[in-house]
Protein backbone atom coordinates (compact mmCIF):
# COMPACT_ATOMS: atom_id res chain seq x y z
CA UNK A 1 0.00 0.00 0.00
CA UNK A 2 1.20 3.46 -0.83
CA UNK A 3 2.17 5.36 2.28
CA UNK A 4 0.17 8.56 2.65
CA UNK A 5 2.03 11.72 1.81
CA UNK A 6 2.06 13.60 5.04
CA UNK A 7 2.57 17.28 5.47
CA UNK A 8 2.91 19.18 8.68
CA UNK A 9 -0.31 20.96 9.45
CA UNK A 10 1.25 24.36 10.07
CA UNK A 11 2.38 24.43 6.45
CA UNK A 12 -1.14 23.88 5.27
CA UNK A 13 -1.23 27.26 3.54
CA UNK A 14 1.61 26.15 1.30
CA UNK A 15 0.17 22.76 0.66
CA UNK A 16 -0.35 21.64 -2.85
CA UNK A 17 -3.44 19.47 -2.95
CA UNK A 18 -3.68 16.82 -5.56
CA UNK A 19 -7.07 15.51 -6.52
CA UNK A 20 -5.93 11.89 -6.41
CA UNK A 21 -5.06 12.01 -2.73
CA UNK A 22 -7.44 10.45 -0.26
CA UNK A 23 -9.51 12.85 1.83
CA UNK A 24 -9.09 10.79 5.00
CA UNK A 25 -6.42 8.24 5.92
CA UNK A 26 -6.36 6.49 9.28
CA UNK A 27 -3.33 4.28 9.89
CA UNK A 28 -3.17 2.01 12.92
CA UNK A 29 -5.36 4.29 14.99
CA UNK A 30 -5.66 3.14 18.60
CA UNK A 31 -7.66 4.92 21.28
CA UNK A 32 -7.46 3.87 24.89
CA UNK A 33 -9.35 5.45 27.78
CA UNK A 34 -8.40 4.97 31.40
CA UNK A 35 -10.95 5.24 34.14
CA UNK A 36 -11.47 3.96 37.66
CA UNK A 37 -12.47 0.55 36.29
CA UNK A 38 -9.20 0.25 34.38
CA UNK A 39 -8.12 0.69 30.81
CA UNK A 40 -10.54 0.42 27.93
CA UNK A 41 -9.54 0.21 24.27
CA UNK A 42 -12.19 1.86 22.11
CA UNK A 43 -10.36 1.72 18.77
CA UNK A 44 -8.09 -1.26 18.20
CA UNK A 45 -5.83 -0.29 15.32
CA UNK A 46 -8.15 1.14 12.68
CA UNK A 47 -6.99 1.48 9.06
CA UNK A 48 -9.34 3.38 6.80
CA UNK A 49 -9.10 5.33 3.56
CA UNK A 50 -11.90 7.60 2.36
CA UNK A 51 -11.49 9.14 -1.08
CA UNK A 52 -12.46 12.63 -2.15
CA UNK A 53 -16.09 12.88 -3.20
CA UNK A 54 -17.22 9.80 -1.28
CA UNK A 55 -20.50 9.79 0.65
CA UNK A 56 -19.84 7.44 3.55
CA UNK A 57 -21.97 6.26 6.42
CA UNK A 58 -20.47 4.73 9.54
CA UNK A 59 -22.72 2.46 11.56
CA UNK A 60 -22.21 0.47 14.72
CA UNK A 61 -23.94 -0.39 17.94
CA UNK A 62 -23.83 1.93 20.90
CA UNK A 63 -20.36 1.66 22.41
CA UNK A 64 -18.82 0.20 19.23
CA UNK A 65 -16.50 3.20 18.88
CA UNK A 66 -18.22 5.02 16.00
CA UNK A 67 -18.34 8.44 17.62
CA UNK A 68 -14.77 8.05 18.84
CA UNK A 69 -13.78 7.22 15.26
CA UNK A 70 -15.47 10.40 14.08
CA UNK A 71 -13.75 12.41 16.81
CA UNK A 72 -10.41 11.17 15.44
CA UNK A 73 -11.24 12.63 12.03
CA UNK A 74 -12.44 15.98 13.38
CA UNK A 75 -9.50 16.39 15.73
CA UNK A 76 -11.84 16.72 18.69
CA UNK A 77 -10.17 13.74 20.38
CA UNK A 78 -6.58 12.46 20.18
CA UNK A 79 -5.51 8.96 19.18
CA UNK A 80 -3.37 7.03 21.67
CA UNK A 81 -1.40 5.67 18.73
CA UNK A 82 -1.41 5.87 14.93
CA UNK A 83 -1.83 8.60 12.35
CA UNK A 84 -4.76 10.54 11.00
CA UNK A 85 -4.28 12.42 7.73
CA UNK A 86 -7.16 14.62 6.62
CA UNK A 87 -7.06 16.60 3.39
CA UNK A 88 -3.30 16.05 3.20
CA UNK A 89 -2.43 17.12 6.75
CA UNK A 90 -1.30 14.87 9.59
CA UNK A 91 -3.54 16.47 12.19
CA UNK A 92 -1.97 15.06 15.37
CA UNK A 93 1.76 15.17 14.72
CA UNK A 94 3.52 18.27 16.02
CA UNK A 95 0.34 20.32 16.08
CA UNK A 96 -0.98 22.46 18.91
CA UNK A 97 -4.65 22.60 19.81
CA UNK A 98 -4.99 26.13 18.45
CA UNK A 99 -3.30 25.23 15.14
CA UNK A 100 -5.68 22.30 14.86
CA UNK A 101 -8.59 24.56 15.64
CA UNK A 102 -7.56 26.92 12.83
CA UNK A 103 -7.05 24.06 10.43
CA UNK A 104 -10.46 22.66 11.32
CA UNK A 105 -12.17 25.95 10.55
CA UNK A 106 -10.94 25.83 6.96
CA UNK A 107 -11.17 22.13 6.25
CA UNK A 108 -14.12 20.75 8.14
CA UNK A 109 -17.79 21.37 8.55
CA UNK A 110 -19.33 19.55 11.47
CA UNK A 111 -22.98 18.78 12.15
CA UNK A 112 -24.20 17.21 15.38
CA UNK A 113 -27.46 15.58 16.41
CA UNK A 114 -28.27 18.50 18.68
CA UNK A 115 -27.68 21.41 16.44
CA UNK A 116 -25.63 23.64 18.72
CA UNK A 117 -27.02 26.91 17.39
CA UNK A 118 -26.41 29.82 19.72
CA UNK A 119 -29.82 30.71 21.18
CA UNK A 120 -29.16 34.44 21.40
CA UNK A 121 -28.15 34.82 17.74
CA UNK A 122 -30.43 34.84 14.70
CA UNK A 123 -30.07 32.08 12.12
CA UNK A 124 -28.12 34.48 9.88
CA UNK A 125 -25.76 35.42 12.72
CA UNK A 126 -25.29 31.76 13.60
CA UNK A 127 -24.28 30.98 10.01
CA UNK A 128 -21.85 33.93 9.96
CA UNK A 129 -20.16 32.87 13.18
CA UNK A 130 -17.58 30.42 11.73
CA UNK A 131 -16.52 33.09 9.23
CA UNK A 132 -15.52 35.28 12.16
CA UNK A 133 -13.08 32.59 13.29
CA UNK A 134 -11.57 31.94 9.87
CA UNK A 135 -10.18 34.80 7.88
CA UNK A 136 -11.45 33.67 4.49
CA UNK A 137 -14.18 36.22 3.82
CA UNK A 138 -14.14 39.98 4.14
CA UNK A 139 -16.24 41.35 6.95
CA UNK A 140 -18.59 43.02 4.43
CA UNK A 141 -19.24 39.92 2.35
CA UNK A 142 -20.12 37.66 5.32
CA UNK A 143 -23.83 38.52 5.63
CA UNK A 144 -24.40 37.99 1.90
CA UNK A 145 -22.59 34.66 1.96
CA UNK A 146 -24.56 33.54 5.03
CA UNK A 147 -27.79 34.51 3.26
CA UNK A 148 -26.75 32.47 0.20
CA UNK A 149 -26.27 29.43 2.44
CA UNK A 150 -29.62 29.96 4.14
CA UNK A 151 -31.20 30.17 0.69
CA UNK A 152 -29.54 26.90 -0.25
CA UNK A 153 -31.19 25.17 2.71
CA UNK A 154 -34.48 26.98 2.13
CA UNK A 155 -34.42 29.21 5.19
CA UNK A 156 -33.96 32.71 3.76
CA UNK A 157 -37.38 33.72 5.05
CA UNK A 158 -36.28 32.90 8.59
CA UNK A 159 -32.83 34.49 8.43
CA UNK A 160 -33.58 37.03 11.15
CA UNK A 161 -35.39 34.68 13.51
CA UNK A 162 -33.88 33.25 16.65
CA UNK A 163 -33.42 29.46 16.64
CA UNK A 164 -36.16 28.87 19.23
CA UNK A 165 -38.77 30.26 16.81
CA UNK A 166 -38.16 27.71 14.04
CA UNK A 167 -38.77 23.95 14.00
CA UNK A 168 -36.09 21.44 14.99
CA UNK A 169 -35.77 20.38 11.34
CA UNK A 170 -35.16 24.01 10.38
CA UNK A 171 -32.64 24.37 13.20
CA UNK A 172 -30.72 21.42 11.82
CA UNK A 173 -30.81 22.91 8.32
CA UNK A 174 -29.38 26.13 9.75
CA UNK A 175 -26.67 24.10 11.52
CA UNK A 176 -25.80 22.53 8.16
CA UNK A 177 -25.64 25.96 6.53
CA UNK A 178 -23.31 27.01 9.34
CA UNK A 179 -21.14 23.91 8.81
CA UNK A 180 -20.74 24.95 5.16
CA UNK A 181 -19.99 28.60 6.03
CA UNK A 182 -16.30 28.44 5.12
CA UNK A 183 -16.85 26.12 2.15
CA UNK A 184 -14.99 23.13 3.64
CA UNK A 185 -14.12 20.17 1.37
CA UNK A 186 -15.20 17.73 4.09
CA UNK A 187 -18.47 17.57 6.01
CA UNK A 188 -18.63 15.34 9.08
CA UNK A 189 -21.97 14.60 10.73
CA UNK A 190 -22.85 12.69 13.90
CA UNK A 191 -26.44 11.39 13.76
CA UNK A 192 -27.56 14.45 11.77
CA UNK A 193 -31.15 13.22 11.52
CA UNK A 194 -31.32 11.47 14.88
CA UNK A 195 -33.62 14.07 16.33
CA UNK A 196 -35.86 14.69 13.30
CA UNK A 197 -39.02 13.42 11.65
CA UNK A 198 -38.64 11.48 8.41
CA UNK A 199 -39.57 14.40 6.14
CA UNK A 200 -36.95 16.71 7.62
CA UNK A 201 -34.46 13.84 7.49
CA UNK A 202 -35.18 13.42 3.79
CA UNK A 203 -34.59 17.13 3.11
CA UNK A 204 -31.23 16.85 4.82
CA UNK A 205 -30.14 13.78 2.93
CA UNK A 206 -31.08 15.46 -0.37
CA UNK A 207 -28.97 18.42 0.63
CA UNK A 208 -26.06 16.09 1.39
CA UNK A 209 -26.46 14.43 -2.01
CA UNK A 210 -26.24 17.88 -3.58
CA UNK A 211 -22.99 18.61 -1.72
CA UNK A 212 -21.53 15.29 -2.86
CA UNK A 213 -22.50 16.10 -6.46
CA UNK A 214 -20.44 19.30 -6.05
CA UNK A 215 -17.42 17.21 -5.06
CA UNK A 216 -17.61 17.49 -1.29
CA UNK A 217 -16.75 14.48 0.86
CA UNK A 218 -19.30 13.55 3.52
CA UNK A 219 -18.79 11.15 6.40
CA UNK A 220 -21.64 10.57 8.80
CA UNK A 221 -22.34 8.37 11.75
CA UNK A 222 -25.92 7.15 11.73
CA UNK A 223 -28.07 4.21 12.62
CA UNK A 224 -30.90 5.26 10.37
CA UNK A 225 -31.23 2.65 7.58
CA UNK A 226 -32.99 5.15 5.31
CA UNK A 227 -29.72 7.15 5.32
CA UNK A 228 -27.28 4.28 4.96
CA UNK A 229 -29.15 3.13 1.86
CA UNK A 230 -28.46 6.52 0.24
CA UNK A 231 -24.71 6.72 0.87
CA UNK A 232 -22.31 5.15 -1.60
CA UNK A 233 -20.27 3.41 1.05
CA UNK A 234 -21.20 1.88 4.36
CA UNK A 235 -18.58 1.21 7.02
CA UNK A 236 -19.46 -0.92 10.03
CA UNK A 237 -17.52 -0.71 13.26
CA UNK A 238 -17.85 -3.44 15.86
CA UNK A 239 -16.08 -3.49 19.20
CA UNK A 240 -13.47 -0.96 18.05
CA UNK A 241 -12.59 -2.68 14.76
CA UNK A 242 -13.76 -2.11 11.21
CA UNK A 243 -15.62 -4.86 9.43
CA UNK A 244 -14.37 -5.86 6.01
CA UNK A 245 -16.71 -4.07 3.60
CA UNK A 246 -16.92 -7.03 1.20
CA UNK A 247 -18.30 -9.14 4.05
CA UNK A 248 -20.86 -6.57 5.18
CA UNK A 249 -21.96 -6.04 1.58
CA UNK A 250 -22.22 -9.76 0.80
CA UNK A 251 -23.89 -10.84 4.04
CA UNK A 252 -25.74 -7.79 5.39
CA UNK A 253 -28.02 -9.92 7.59
CA UNK A 254 -25.11 -11.24 9.60
CA UNK A 255 -24.68 -10.04 13.19
CA UNK A 256 -21.85 -7.55 13.59
CA UNK A 257 -19.83 -9.87 15.83
CA UNK A 258 -20.00 -12.59 13.19
CA UNK A 259 -18.97 -10.14 10.49
CA UNK A 260 -16.02 -9.19 12.64
CA UNK A 261 -15.11 -12.84 13.14
CA UNK A 262 -15.22 -13.39 9.37
CA UNK A 263 -13.12 -10.26 8.86
CA UNK A 264 -10.39 -11.83 10.96
CA UNK A 265 -10.35 -15.28 9.35
CA UNK A 266 -11.20 -14.62 5.70
CA UNK A 267 -8.36 -15.18 3.21
CA UNK A 268 -7.76 -12.90 0.25
CA UNK A 269 -7.41 -14.70 -3.09
CA UNK A 270 -6.66 -13.07 -6.44
CA UNK A 271 -7.41 -14.67 -9.81
CA UNK A 272 -6.23 -13.67 -13.27
CA UNK A 273 -8.75 -13.03 -16.06
CA UNK A 274 -10.54 -16.30 -17.01
CA UNK A 275 -8.66 -18.27 -14.35
CA UNK A 276 -10.70 -21.13 -12.91
CA UNK A 277 -11.78 -20.62 -9.30
CA UNK A 278 -13.85 -23.79 -8.92
CA UNK A 279 -14.10 -26.69 -11.38
CA UNK A 280 -17.20 -28.76 -11.78
CA UNK A 281 -17.13 -31.92 -9.65
CA UNK A 282 -14.45 -30.46 -7.41
CA UNK A 283 -14.99 -30.54 -3.65
CA UNK A 284 -15.49 -27.08 -2.24
CA UNK A 285 -13.74 -25.99 0.93
CA UNK A 286 -14.53 -22.27 0.89
CA UNK A 287 -17.34 -19.77 0.79
CA UNK A 288 -16.36 -17.00 -1.62
CA UNK A 289 -17.30 -13.28 -1.55
CA UNK A 290 -16.35 -11.07 -4.49
CA UNK A 291 -14.40 -7.95 -3.57
CA UNK A 292 -13.54 -6.76 -7.04
CA UNK A 293 -14.21 -7.85 -10.61
CA UNK A 294 -16.75 -10.24 -12.14
CA UNK A 295 -17.11 -13.98 -11.79
CA UNK A 296 -18.74 -16.26 -14.39
CA UNK A 297 -20.68 -19.37 -13.44
CA UNK A 298 -20.60 -21.69 -16.43
CA UNK A 299 -22.20 -25.05 -17.21
CA UNK A 300 -20.88 -27.54 -19.77
CA UNK A 301 -22.98 -29.97 -21.81
CA UNK A 302 -21.86 -33.43 -22.84
CA UNK A 303 -20.23 -32.03 -25.95
CA UNK A 304 -18.25 -29.61 -23.75
CA UNK A 305 -20.30 -26.73 -25.05
CA UNK A 306 -20.49 -24.01 -22.41
CA UNK A 307 -23.36 -21.84 -21.32
CA UNK A 308 -23.15 -18.93 -18.90
CA UNK A 309 -25.54 -19.42 -15.98
CA UNK A 310 -24.78 -16.19 -14.22
CA UNK A 311 -22.28 -13.39 -13.94
CA UNK A 312 -21.66 -12.34 -10.35
CA UNK A 313 -20.50 -8.87 -9.31
CA UNK A 314 -18.63 -7.40 -6.38
CA UNK A 315 -20.66 -7.88 -3.20
CA UNK A 316 -22.11 -11.20 -4.40
CA UNK A 317 -21.01 -14.64 -3.22
CA UNK A 318 -20.67 -18.23 -4.44
CA UNK A 319 -19.78 -21.69 -3.19
CA UNK A 320 -22.62 -21.62 -0.68
CA UNK A 321 -24.74 -24.23 -2.44
CA UNK A 322 -22.22 -26.99 -2.09
CA UNK A 323 -21.32 -25.98 1.45
CA UNK A 324 -24.95 -26.08 2.49
CA UNK A 325 -26.13 -29.07 0.48
CA UNK A 326 -22.89 -31.01 0.61
CA UNK A 327 -21.38 -32.54 -2.49
CA UNK A 328 -19.34 -31.32 -5.38
CA UNK A 329 -19.59 -28.24 -7.53
CA UNK A 330 -22.29 -28.38 -10.13
CA UNK A 331 -20.71 -25.68 -12.31
CA UNK A 332 -17.41 -24.19 -13.38
CA UNK A 333 -16.67 -20.87 -11.75
CA UNK A 334 -14.01 -18.60 -13.17
CA UNK A 335 -12.79 -15.04 -13.30
CA UNK A 336 -14.32 -12.73 -15.90
CA UNK A 337 -12.40 -10.50 -18.31
CA UNK A 338 -10.67 -8.64 -15.48
CA UNK A 339 -8.65 -9.88 -12.50
CA UNK A 340 -10.86 -10.91 -9.60
CA UNK A 341 -10.30 -10.41 -5.89
CA UNK A 342 -12.28 -12.61 -3.54
CA UNK A 343 -12.48 -13.21 0.18
CA UNK A 344 -12.53 -16.91 0.95
CA UNK A 345 -13.94 -18.26 4.17
CA UNK A 346 -13.06 -21.80 5.31
CA UNK A 347 -15.98 -24.21 5.18
CA UNK A 348 -16.05 -25.08 8.90
CA UNK A 349 -16.20 -21.43 9.99
CA UNK A 350 -18.92 -20.62 7.50
CA UNK A 351 -21.12 -23.53 8.61
CA UNK A 352 -20.60 -22.79 12.30
CA UNK A 353 -21.60 -19.15 12.00
CA UNK A 354 -24.64 -19.99 9.89
CA UNK A 355 -25.74 -22.37 12.65
CA UNK A 356 -25.59 -19.43 15.07
CA UNK A 357 -27.26 -16.95 12.74
CA UNK A 358 -30.64 -18.27 11.56
CA UNK A 359 -31.54 -15.02 9.77
CA UNK A 360 -28.48 -15.20 7.55
CA UNK A 361 -28.87 -18.95 7.05
CA UNK A 362 -32.43 -18.32 5.91
CA UNK A 363 -31.45 -15.55 3.51
CA UNK A 364 -28.70 -17.67 1.99
CA UNK A 365 -31.03 -20.66 1.66
CA UNK A 366 -33.44 -18.51 -0.35
CA UNK A 367 -30.65 -17.41 -2.67
CA UNK A 368 -29.54 -21.05 -3.03
CA UNK A 369 -33.07 -22.06 -3.92
CA UNK A 370 -33.40 -19.47 -6.66
CA UNK A 371 -29.96 -20.30 -8.02
CA UNK A 372 -30.73 -23.99 -8.10
CA UNK A 373 -33.81 -23.26 -10.14
CA UNK A 374 -31.79 -21.11 -12.54
CA UNK A 375 -29.23 -23.88 -12.83
CA UNK A 376 -31.90 -26.45 -13.50
CA UNK A 377 -33.16 -24.40 -16.41
CA UNK A 378 -29.65 -23.85 -17.69
CA UNK A 379 -28.70 -27.49 -17.13
CA UNK A 380 -31.61 -28.70 -19.25
CA UNK A 381 -30.67 -26.34 -21.99
CA UNK A 382 -26.98 -27.30 -21.92
CA UNK A 383 -27.66 -31.05 -21.90
CA UNK A 384 -30.12 -30.84 -24.80
CA UNK A 385 -28.76 -32.48 -27.91
Amino acid at each position, binding site marked *: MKAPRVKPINDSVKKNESASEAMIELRGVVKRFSNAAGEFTVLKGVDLTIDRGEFVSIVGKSGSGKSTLL*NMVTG*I*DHPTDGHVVVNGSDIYTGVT*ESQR*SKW*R*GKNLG*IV*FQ*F*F*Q*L*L*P*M*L*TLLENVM*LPMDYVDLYDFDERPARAMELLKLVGLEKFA*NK*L*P*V*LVSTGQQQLAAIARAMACDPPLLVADEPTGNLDSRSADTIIQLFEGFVAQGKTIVMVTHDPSLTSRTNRNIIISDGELINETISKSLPQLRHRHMLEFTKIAEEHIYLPHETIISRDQNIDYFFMIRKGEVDVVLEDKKKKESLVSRLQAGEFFGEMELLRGGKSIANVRAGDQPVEVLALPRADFIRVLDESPVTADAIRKIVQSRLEAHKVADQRSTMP
Partner: protein
Amino acid sequence: MSSSIIELRNVSKTYSTAAGDFTALINVNMNILAGEFLGIVGKSGAGKSTLLNMINGVDQLTSGEVIVRADNENISIHTMSEDARASWRGKKMGVVYQSFQLLPMLTLIDNITLPMDLSDNYKPRESKERAMQLLQLMELEEHAYKLPAFISGGQQQRVAIARALANDPPILVADEPTGSLDSITADHIFEVFEHLITDQGKTIVMVTHDVGLVSRFSRSLTIADGELLSEAVPDTKLNQGRKK
Protein backbone atom coordinates in the same frame (compact mmCIF):
# COMPACT_ATOMS: atom_id res chain seq x y z
CA MET B 1 -41.31 43.63 49.96
CA SER B 2 -39.79 43.00 46.56
CA SER B 3 -40.70 45.16 43.61
CA SER B 4 -41.90 43.89 40.27
CA ILE B 5 -39.04 43.47 37.80
CA ILE B 6 -41.23 42.15 34.95
CA GLU B 7 -44.88 42.94 34.45
CA LEU B 8 -47.17 41.33 31.85
CA ARG B 9 -50.33 43.26 31.05
CA ASN B 10 -53.09 41.50 29.11
CA VAL B 11 -50.66 39.54 27.01
CA SER B 12 -52.24 37.46 24.25
CA LYS B 13 -50.57 35.50 21.49
CA THR B 14 -52.37 34.08 18.47
CA TYR B 15 -50.68 32.06 15.75
CA SER B 16 -52.14 31.75 12.28
CA THR B 17 -51.80 28.26 10.91
CA ALA B 18 -53.17 26.47 7.87
CA ALA B 19 -55.83 25.00 10.15
CA GLY B 20 -56.90 28.45 11.34
CA ASP B 21 -55.98 30.73 14.21
CA PHE B 22 -54.54 29.21 17.36
CA THR B 23 -54.46 31.20 20.58
CA ALA B 24 -51.48 30.15 22.68
CA LEU B 25 -51.85 32.80 25.41
CA ILE B 26 -55.06 34.40 26.57
CA ASN B 27 -54.93 37.69 28.45
CA VAL B 28 -52.09 36.87 30.78
CA ASN B 29 -51.45 39.28 33.64
CA MET B 30 -48.58 38.66 36.00
CA ASN B 31 -45.78 40.22 37.98
CA ILE B 32 -42.34 38.71 38.43
CA LEU B 33 -40.62 40.00 41.54
CA ALA B 34 -37.00 41.02 41.72
CA GLY B 35 -34.95 38.27 43.36
CA GLU B 36 -37.52 35.50 43.10
CA PHE B 37 -37.12 32.05 41.59
CA LEU B 38 -40.37 31.73 39.66
CA GLY B 39 -41.44 28.44 38.17
CA ILE B 40 -43.97 28.30 35.36
CA VAL B 41 -45.41 24.81 35.28
CA GLY B 42 -47.62 23.30 32.61
CA LYS B 43 -48.10 20.39 30.26
CA SER B 44 -46.77 20.26 26.74
CA GLY B 45 -48.78 22.73 24.62
CA ALA B 46 -50.03 24.67 27.65
CA GLY B 47 -48.32 27.84 26.43
CA LYS B 48 -45.43 27.95 28.88
CA SER B 49 -42.64 28.27 26.29
CA THR B 50 -44.68 30.88 24.41
CA LEU B 51 -45.03 32.78 27.67
CA LEU B 52 -41.26 32.63 28.18
CA ASN B 53 -40.71 33.90 24.64
CA MET B 54 -42.96 36.89 25.48
CA ILE B 55 -41.03 37.61 28.67
CA ASN B 56 -37.64 37.60 26.96
CA GLY B 57 -38.94 39.29 23.82
CA VAL B 58 -37.83 36.46 21.55
CA ASP B 59 -41.29 36.28 19.98
CA GLN B 60 -43.78 39.05 19.12
CA LEU B 61 -46.99 39.37 21.09
CA THR B 62 -50.41 39.80 19.47
CA SER B 63 -51.70 42.23 22.08
CA GLY B 64 -50.77 43.51 25.52
CA GLU B 65 -47.50 44.67 26.97
CA VAL B 66 -44.39 43.35 28.75
CA ILE B 67 -42.64 45.89 30.96
CA VAL B 68 -39.19 45.15 32.32
CA ARG B 69 -37.79 47.30 35.14
CA ALA B 70 -34.14 46.43 35.41
CA ASP B 71 -31.11 48.60 36.18
CA ASN B 72 -33.25 51.72 36.66
CA GLU B 73 -34.83 51.42 33.22
CA ASN B 74 -38.49 50.94 32.62
CA ILE B 75 -39.04 49.49 29.17
CA SER B 76 -42.02 48.11 27.28
CA ILE B 77 -39.86 45.62 25.45
CA HIS B 78 -42.14 44.83 22.52
CA THR B 79 -42.16 48.46 21.40
CA MET B 80 -38.46 48.20 20.56
CA SER B 81 -37.22 47.23 17.12
CA GLU B 82 -36.00 43.65 16.69
CA ASP B 83 -32.36 44.79 16.70
CA ALA B 84 -32.76 47.03 19.72
CA ARG B 85 -34.51 44.24 21.59
CA ALA B 86 -31.73 41.77 20.72
CA SER B 87 -29.10 44.08 22.08
CA TRP B 88 -31.23 44.88 25.15
CA ARG B 89 -31.71 41.14 25.77
CA GLY B 90 -27.98 40.58 25.49
CA LYS B 91 -27.49 42.85 28.50
CA LYS B 92 -30.54 42.16 30.65
CA MET B 93 -31.44 38.53 30.17
CA GLY B 94 -29.53 35.31 30.09
CA VAL B 95 -31.22 32.44 28.31
CA VAL B 96 -30.78 28.72 29.03
CA TYR B 97 -32.45 25.91 27.08
CA GLN B 98 -32.90 22.20 27.59
CA SER B 99 -30.21 21.35 25.05
CA PHE B 100 -27.09 23.15 26.02
CA GLN B 101 -26.09 24.36 22.57
CA LEU B 102 -22.44 24.87 23.31
CA LEU B 103 -20.30 25.28 20.23
CA PRO B 104 -18.52 21.94 19.93
CA MET B 105 -15.34 23.36 18.43
CA LEU B 106 -14.74 25.94 21.13
CA THR B 107 -13.27 25.23 24.55
CA LEU B 108 -15.51 25.88 27.54
CA ILE B 109 -13.84 29.18 28.30
CA ASP B 110 -14.21 30.32 24.67
CA ASN B 111 -17.88 29.34 24.71
CA ILE B 112 -18.40 31.65 27.69
CA THR B 113 -16.28 34.46 26.27
CA LEU B 114 -18.31 34.47 23.04
CA PRO B 115 -21.35 36.52 24.22
CA MET B 116 -19.01 39.07 25.80
CA ASP B 117 -17.04 39.41 22.56
CA LEU B 118 -20.28 39.78 20.62
CA SER B 119 -21.69 42.42 22.95
CA ASP B 120 -18.52 44.49 23.38
CA ASN B 121 -19.36 44.92 27.08
CA TYR B 122 -15.92 43.74 28.14
CA LYS B 123 -12.41 44.11 26.80
CA PRO B 124 -10.97 40.82 25.52
CA ARG B 125 -8.74 40.42 28.56
CA GLU B 126 -11.56 41.19 30.97
CA SER B 127 -13.87 38.77 29.22
CA LYS B 128 -11.35 35.95 29.64
CA GLU B 129 -11.00 36.72 33.36
CA ARG B 130 -14.71 36.97 33.80
CA ALA B 131 -15.28 33.67 31.96
CA MET B 132 -12.82 32.01 34.32
CA GLN B 133 -14.64 33.44 37.35
CA LEU B 134 -17.92 32.08 36.01
CA LEU B 135 -16.32 28.67 35.50
CA GLN B 136 -15.11 28.82 39.09
CA LEU B 137 -18.61 29.63 40.23
CA MET B 138 -19.80 26.51 38.39
CA GLU B 139 -16.88 24.50 39.85
CA LEU B 140 -15.58 23.77 36.38
CA GLU B 141 -12.40 25.83 36.26
CA GLU B 142 -10.20 22.74 35.90
CA HIS B 143 -12.00 21.94 32.63
CA ALA B 144 -11.70 25.45 31.17
CA TYR B 145 -9.64 24.43 28.15
CA LYS B 146 -11.54 21.26 27.31
CA LEU B 147 -14.00 20.91 24.45
CA PRO B 148 -17.66 20.30 25.42
CA ALA B 149 -17.51 16.69 24.18
CA PHE B 150 -15.24 15.80 27.08
CA ILE B 151 -17.46 16.79 29.96
CA SER B 152 -20.76 15.34 31.14
CA GLY B 153 -24.22 16.60 30.20
CA GLY B 154 -24.70 18.20 33.60
CA GLN B 155 -21.37 19.97 33.31
CA GLN B 156 -22.29 21.19 29.81
CA GLN B 157 -25.50 22.65 31.19
CA ARG B 158 -23.52 24.48 33.88
CA VAL B 159 -21.30 25.92 31.15
CA ALA B 160 -24.45 27.01 29.29
CA ILE B 161 -25.62 28.77 32.46
CA ALA B 162 -22.21 30.41 32.84
CA ARG B 163 -22.52 31.58 29.23
CA ALA B 164 -25.99 32.96 29.94
CA LEU B 165 -24.47 34.92 32.83
CA ALA B 166 -21.56 36.21 30.74
CA ASN B 167 -22.85 39.76 30.39
CA ASP B 168 -24.03 39.79 34.02
CA PRO B 169 -27.76 40.11 33.28
CA PRO B 170 -30.06 40.71 36.25
CA ILE B 171 -32.58 38.18 34.89
CA LEU B 172 -32.11 34.57 33.84
CA VAL B 173 -34.82 32.73 31.89
CA ALA B 174 -34.59 28.97 31.50
CA ASP B 175 -36.72 26.60 29.43
CA GLU B 176 -36.60 23.04 30.86
CA PRO B 177 -32.95 23.46 31.82
CA THR B 178 -32.93 20.13 33.67
CA GLY B 179 -35.12 18.33 31.13
CA SER B 180 -32.38 16.09 29.79
CA LEU B 181 -30.48 15.54 33.04
CA ASP B 182 -30.72 12.84 35.68
CA SER B 183 -32.06 13.87 39.10
CA ILE B 184 -28.69 14.17 40.85
CA THR B 185 -27.28 16.32 38.07
CA ALA B 186 -30.50 18.35 38.04
CA ASP B 187 -30.08 18.92 41.77
CA HIS B 188 -26.71 20.46 41.13
CA ILE B 189 -28.25 22.88 38.62
CA PHE B 190 -30.85 23.92 41.20
CA GLU B 191 -28.09 24.55 43.72
CA VAL B 192 -26.45 26.85 41.19
CA PHE B 193 -29.75 28.70 40.63
CA GLU B 194 -30.33 29.03 44.38
CA HIS B 195 -26.86 30.46 44.80
CA LEU B 196 -27.48 32.99 42.02
CA ILE B 197 -30.63 34.15 43.81
CA THR B 198 -29.44 34.28 47.39
CA ASP B 199 -25.86 35.47 46.84
CA GLN B 200 -26.07 37.46 43.61
CA GLY B 201 -29.60 38.80 43.73
CA LYS B 202 -30.55 37.48 40.28
CA THR B 203 -34.14 36.90 39.24
CA ILE B 204 -34.80 33.53 37.62
CA VAL B 205 -37.82 32.46 35.59
CA MET B 206 -37.93 28.80 34.74
CA VAL B 207 -40.40 26.84 32.67
CA THR B 208 -40.99 23.13 33.25
CA HIS B 209 -43.55 20.37 32.70
CA ASP B 210 -42.33 18.58 35.84
CA VAL B 211 -44.75 19.23 38.71
CA GLY B 212 -42.30 17.51 41.03
CA LEU B 213 -40.01 20.53 40.80
CA VAL B 214 -42.54 22.97 42.31
CA SER B 215 -40.97 22.73 45.76
CA ARG B 216 -37.66 24.05 44.36
CA PHE B 217 -39.07 27.43 43.34
CA SER B 218 -39.78 30.35 45.62
CA ARG B 219 -43.10 30.65 43.80
CA SER B 220 -44.75 28.77 40.97
CA LEU B 221 -47.56 29.47 38.55
CA THR B 222 -49.52 26.82 36.72
CA ILE B 223 -50.46 27.42 33.10
CA ALA B 224 -52.98 25.45 31.06
CA ASP B 225 -54.53 26.17 27.67
CA GLY B 226 -52.82 29.56 27.55
CA GLU B 227 -54.18 30.82 30.86
CA LEU B 228 -52.57 31.15 34.27
CA LEU B 229 -54.44 29.01 36.78
CA SER B 230 -53.00 28.73 40.24
CA GLU B 231 -50.15 30.04 42.32
CA ALA B 232 -48.12 28.13 44.89
CA VAL B 233 -45.61 29.42 47.41
CA PRO B 234 -43.88 26.45 48.98
CA ASP B 235 -42.12 26.60 52.31
CA THR B 236 -38.58 26.32 51.01
CA LYS B 237 -35.31 27.72 52.17
CA LEU B 238 -35.52 30.32 49.40
CA ASN B 239 -38.65 31.71 51.05
CA GLN B 240 -37.53 31.64 54.63
CA GLY B 241 -35.58 34.89 54.45
CA ARG B 242 -38.43 36.53 52.59
CA LYS B 243 -41.11 35.61 55.10
CA LYS B 244 -39.32 37.01 58.12
